[in-house]
């Protein structure tokens, strides 16, 4: 069973209280961007074996979106953090590095 800590209401929410929202930190390119960039934004997703960044919503709870980092291989949860950010907090990246040295995910490492 997956349990994620909601950073907004502080609850350790069980999976059935949450809704999955797909990959985190997708970057949408604005006016004037190329077709390739828009194609990648729409369709290209990470499919890592290991560290993965996701969006979740505490739908049967406070209703807020947040980010979570998990390992796709062991289902270990590294942590959750606010959605009001464009990249993962440094402490969390350090914590992942401590457990999975040399990890990379898109431009983060």
């Amino acid at each position: 069973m997956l349990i994620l800590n909601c950073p907004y209401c502080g609850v350790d929410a069980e999976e059935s209280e949450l809704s999955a929202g797909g990959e985190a930190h997708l970057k949408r390119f604005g006016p004037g961007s190329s077709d390739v960039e828009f194609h990648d934004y729409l369709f290209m997703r990470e499919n890592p074996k290991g560290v993965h960044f996701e969006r979740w919503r505490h739908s049967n709870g406070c209703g807020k979106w947040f980010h979570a980092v998990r390992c796709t291989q062991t289902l270990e949860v590294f942590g959750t953090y606010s959605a009001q950010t464009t990249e993962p907090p440094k402490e969390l990246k350090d914590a992942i590095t401590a457990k999975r040295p040399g990890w990379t995910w898109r431009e983060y490492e």
Partner: protein
Amino acid sequence: MSEPISALNHASYDGIAKVRECGLQGMITLRGDLSDKVLAKAVKDATGQKMPGQREALVYGDSGVCWMSTDELLVLVPYAEVEAKLAAMTNALSGTHALAVNVSDARAVFSISGSNAREVLGKLAPVELSAEAFQPGQIRRSRLAQVAGAFWMDDAETFRVVCFRSAADYVFKLLKVAAQPGSEVGVY
């Protein structure tokens, strides 16, 4: 105007705990910046309560305030006073980026009382309900089987459960099944 009637009109059930539909309860959903002093004063004027902290429920009888999320409060007032309180609140918040809406008739309220009340609710919600983890003064928004619901405790043996009025019949049936005689699990 016709007489307002609550979803199940005070239906009740006696099992390992007593389940009762509480009748009409005035409720105002208030959204805005919870650190705003104007908003805190509007809440104080309506309920006499201070601004609740994270997951706090400051409820006495049918009046109080509950923390619903980082920018949302549930303000409880007596049903008969809800229009007047809402008007006063809207007036007080006129210069603030906030929204107050009367949701009284969109909700149903149940009480679960008795020494097995924790058992009954624990079967329906994925929430740690032991006496150490959940106490009067806290609110938890979660799900009751398949529908959304929120609950807090009036005292050590009484829960108050809020759900959508459209799901009132479903929730009452759930609570009845969970409170069947002989169905104590003995966890809490």
